[in-house]
């Protein structure tokens, strides 16, 4: 065990902290899930990119700093501790980029990644459909081969597309083999939201923000890849035709994807919670102060757990089974953190402030990216080895 940071890591932290101190907008930004808020967030993303903080762990060629996993953790800690804005580019960077790194052609990487890091292309995910939520393999949106035009025609409906109303591009799975069922015969498509035949309808999230969208595709054409920029601008395929499931799954469990959610965000929330509790100590019941303490302990435990994961990854060992536990823990911890805050606020909790908004947001954690019920099945079956049937 050695829980100290190296000199270069310390320097990285210092550089990061200084920049954030000088640049994070005072008072924060409004939600990135409203049209006005999104525009301001976009400016912020451009600012991050210019200072090369938008994708620290990426190669320099794509706008990154070739940062190590440890440095990425440091960046995240500093970012959240500074109260910096939520990342509207997150779905692209965390969910799509690892897939492009692994399955994209060199030309695709060169085309898409710099535009993503610069927040020129803004990606939303197109996994869910009205009848394919938890059951992702239930996808029925289809890709029909058009040999004559040399490409594919996409039709169907995607939904619960976070920030779909404001993004520029969509990535998602489409059924390319019409006779296929379940996981087979799906292809991973990239497609611009301004393509002909595409309709985006924003709708209200729980907190009232227009964060979600339904995306209707009516014969949207995606040309075959000829390696040219002009074609790639009209979309493309990641990995092979009919191999979309494997492509998508390979990176949903990526260490930089959703399973390794950086502890910085939760520790920052925990620190704010402790501040609130100190303010309200005198008027709060013991049970609430205990709940605050438990939630803070959660954040500590999660941070340490993550250090163990990153140690494994950095030393070339797969954390494997361990990572299955992460999503259940962080999503339920996030709820505990926010519940404790609302209980500190008492009658004032219903005011539509940061903690209530944060609670509403946290409520989505146990649902998205595989409900926690599915995650618990995975823990039981794949980690503990209980029988599937």
């Amino acid at each position: 065990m050695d829980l100290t940071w190296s000199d270069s890591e310390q320097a990285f932290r210092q550089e990061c902290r200084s920049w954030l101190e000088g640049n994070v907008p005072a008072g924060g930004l409004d939600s990135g899930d409203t049209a006005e808020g999104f525009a301001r967030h976009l400016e912020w993303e451009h600012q991050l990119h210019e200072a090369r903080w938008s994708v620290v762990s990426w190669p320099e060629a794509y706008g990154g700093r070739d940062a190590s996993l440890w440095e990425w953790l440091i960046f995240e800690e500093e970012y959240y501790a500074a109260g910096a804005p939520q990342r509207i580019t997150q779905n692209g960077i965390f969910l799509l980029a690892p897939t492009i790194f692994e399955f994209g052609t060199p030309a695709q990487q060169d085309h898409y990644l710099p535009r993503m890091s610069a927040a020129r292309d803004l990606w939303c995910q197109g996994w869910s459909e009205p009848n394919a939520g938890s059951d992702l393999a239930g996808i029925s949106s289809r890709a029909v081969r058009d040999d004559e035009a040399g490409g594919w025609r996409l039709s169907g409906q995607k939904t619960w597309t976070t920030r779909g109303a404001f993004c520029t591009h969509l990535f998602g799975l489409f059924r390319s083999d019409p006779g296929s069922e379940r996981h087979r015969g799906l292809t991973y498509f990239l497609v611009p939201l301004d393509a002909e035949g595409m309709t985006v309808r924003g709708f209200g999230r729980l907190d009232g923000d227009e964060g979600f969208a339904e995306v209707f595709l009516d014969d949207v054409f995606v040309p075959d890849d000829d390696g040219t920029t002009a074609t790639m601008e009209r979309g493309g395929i990641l990995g092979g035709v009919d191999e979309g499931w494997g492509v998508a799954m390979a990176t949903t469990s990526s260490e930089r994807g959703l399973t390794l959610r950086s502890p910085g965000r939760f520790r920052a929330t925990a620190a704010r919670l402790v501040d609130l509790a100190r303010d309200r100590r005198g008027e709060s019941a013991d049970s609430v102060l205990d709940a605050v303490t438990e939630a803070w302990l959660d954040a500590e435990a999660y941070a340490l757990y993550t250090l163990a994961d990153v140690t494994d990854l950095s030393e070339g060992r797969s954390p494997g089974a361990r990572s299955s536990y992460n999503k259940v823990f962080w999503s339920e911890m996030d709820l505990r953190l926010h519940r404790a805050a609302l209980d500190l606020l008492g009658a004032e909790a219903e005011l539509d402030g940061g903690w209530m908004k944060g609670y509403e947001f946290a409520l989505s954690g146990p649902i998205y990216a595989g409900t926690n019920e599915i995650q618990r099945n995975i823990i039981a079956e794949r980690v503990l080895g209980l029988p599937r049937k």
Partner: protein
Amino acid sequence: MRFAPTEEQTEFAAATGALLADTCPPSAVAAAWGGEVGRHTGLGDGDGRIRAAWDALVEMGVNGILVPEQQGGLAMSLDHLVGVLEECGYSALPDPVADSAGVVAHSLGQCSDTAPDVGAVNDTLAAVAAGSTVVSGFGSSPLVASATTADTLLMFTRDPTRVDPDAPADPAADRVVLLDRSEVDLEPVESVDGSRALARVRWDAASGACVAQGSAASALTDEAFLVAALADSALLVGLGRAMIDLTVSYVGERKQFGVPVGSFQAVKHHLADAALAVQFAEPLVRNAAHLMSGGVAVEAPGSIPTDSRSVAVSAAKARSSDAAKKVTETALQCHGAIGYTVEADLHLFMKRAWALARSHGDSAFHLKRVRRQLLAG
């Protein structure tokens, strides 16, 4: 021994439920937020009222349940009212029935002979029965729902949730007054529940019609606070039931992996636990209502000597708040992503529950009150 509502009470509540099913469907609740019905893209600009429901309830006599006959009321008891309030919760009615017909009617009824300004008290009681909207607030600048559309406000100088029980405030300083809406300073504030039409009320304790002062005001404040917490509890039980029903209905239809979501054992057990919480909260609410109606507590060997009314209400509020909060999270999780939108009705109920679970003392506050009494001896 009989632990059940009377037939009359059961029928009255059922009639209220039927009336609200007609006049207060989720679309009407959504409309009370303001904006386009069923599409909420921000906080409401509605006034938190469903006039058709209110008028029908007034006509039925609900608002006068606790009002004495001389003032045109039904002179019934809180026992009677809680069944009605459960129905109001079940349909997420945003109108302030609990306040007007509950806290206000009960409090004014307590001092219709003794108030310094008996005239104002009795006029207001009569107005309540006739459909006037009177809401209540505790403390010098409380948050009050539906204040912006209220005719009158019944204000208490002391907020019992803000007083250190080890150093109780001076009873002589307490004062309770009735104020016209024009006599108070209203600052509308945004609640997570747009139909709450919440406002912060600032007021001058020296103004208005005096309902009680000194030790009488102190006793009345404690009494009114208990009624307020009890009324919230009944609403929360109704909200809990409604969210369970909504969710059962949804997961019975929604299919994933080729089967209804409700056929998964995890979903079944989530909902069973939610239902358990509501089931075992309700008798506490009914018991508290009975005691607050002057009923005698069940005698049992080894009972802990406590102020049974206060403990009974705190027990009801603690458990109904916890149950309702638990149900919101269960209902949302079982709905999945659709529950996380304002396209589904669920959010109307959840947000109300989040607000009421913490109004007039949250579960931690009331648990502490029970603990203090229980472990004092």
